[in-house]
């Protein structure tokens, strides 16, 4: 019942939002233009596959960020994002402790992981690719994320963002090869226009 209501709500929302994709389709880019704060309803999920099947799945519950959508050129848009590895959540308390420890995030010494975009490139009607510098454990590397617009309604905008990060670059490769080097991100980013 609850599911049905949700599905219905999703459908209506989809009908309202999706035909009006921001990029190139209606609404015009100018309609989406603005500076947005990333809200706490966003979901920052990640997983690391393990040998023999299965994976560690987790998410971060504390983060902040903002992005600016340029009204004239998507390429001029930008995003900055900070997450707090102390807030990592998994199904296992001991796994969380391990992720926070000096073996992985070293959250005491490096309380934030940051991302600053350097380039935004539109790749389709509702898709784009964002390049940027990711800093974790004091190490900075260029990373790339794929962005898909999910909807725009009033001052609220929703994106799904995915990307793969090699943890060895940030000296977080403990547990390889039992756990693969690649961390897969799947994030639902919700923004509210300022």
């Amino acid at each position, binding site marked *: 019942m609850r599911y049905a209501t949700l599905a219905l709500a999703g459908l209506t929302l989809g009908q309202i939002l999706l035909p009006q994709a921001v990029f190139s389709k209606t609404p015009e880019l100018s309609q989406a233009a603005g500076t947005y704060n990333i809200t706490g309803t966003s979901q920052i999920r990640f997983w690391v596959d393990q*040998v023999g099947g299965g994976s560690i799945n987790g998410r971060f519950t504390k983060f902040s960020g903002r992005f600016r959508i340029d009204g004239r050129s998507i390429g001029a848009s930008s995003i900055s994002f900070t997450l707090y590895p102390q807030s990592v959540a998994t199904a296992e308390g001991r796994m969380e402790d391990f992720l926070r420890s000096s073996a992985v995030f070293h959250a005491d010494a490096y309380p934030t992981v940051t991302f600053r975009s350097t380039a935004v490139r539109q790749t389709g009607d509702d898709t784009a690719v964002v390049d940027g510098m990711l800093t974790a454990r004091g190490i900075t590397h260029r990373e790339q994320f794929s962005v898909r617009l999910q909807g725009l309604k009033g001052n609220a905008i929703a994106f799904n963002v995915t990307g793969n990060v090699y943890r060895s670059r940030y000296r977080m490769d*403990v547990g390889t*090869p039992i756990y693969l080097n690649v961390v897969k991100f799947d994030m639902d980013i919700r923004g509210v226009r300022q």
Partner: protein
Amino acid sequence: MRKPRDNGYGIGEICLHWLMAGLVLGLVVLGFAMRRRGIDPALQFSLYQWHKSFGLIALALAGLRVFLWLAAGRVAPAPGLGVVERRASTATHLLLGFLCLVVPLAGWAVASTTTLNIPTFLFNLVVIPPLPMARSAGAEAFWSWVHATTAYTLLALAALHSAAALFHHFVRRDGVLMRMLGRRTIDPVDTPANEGSKR
């Protein structure tokens, strides 16, 4: 189990014994060290993985020894032992052999029931599947307890067993330790070096 053999330990049994003794002692030290509080978490992770890999080798060797006992029979106690000594040594050896199976099996049960769900990747080469057991905090705690208790019991028994072997060698001056070191002389009287074996 076949009838005990009187011809002493073969080279295979001797190698198996010392390999197993080294592995068990190393695994107890490793197991104890990796469980210490305040250990570097990355080091702890790899120690656990080494422990599981070597532990499974110990399990395979323990299985081999029991198989040899069943297939070829156990070696009869050294001549010159009293009835009580024979009984005690046989009982100790059987219990040692049994514990060498139970301890790693319980360890495997820990790895199979823990909610941490960390794969067992034997020397980073082969994935060892978990035993078909349900994962839960309760089951993990139980098997952890069984594994630790039996492991330290095995250590205590091995200490007693080594003390007996050393007692025979240094106090009784008989051939009990020597026959596990591959020397065939079981003569209680010292044989002059140039005479060699009496047989």
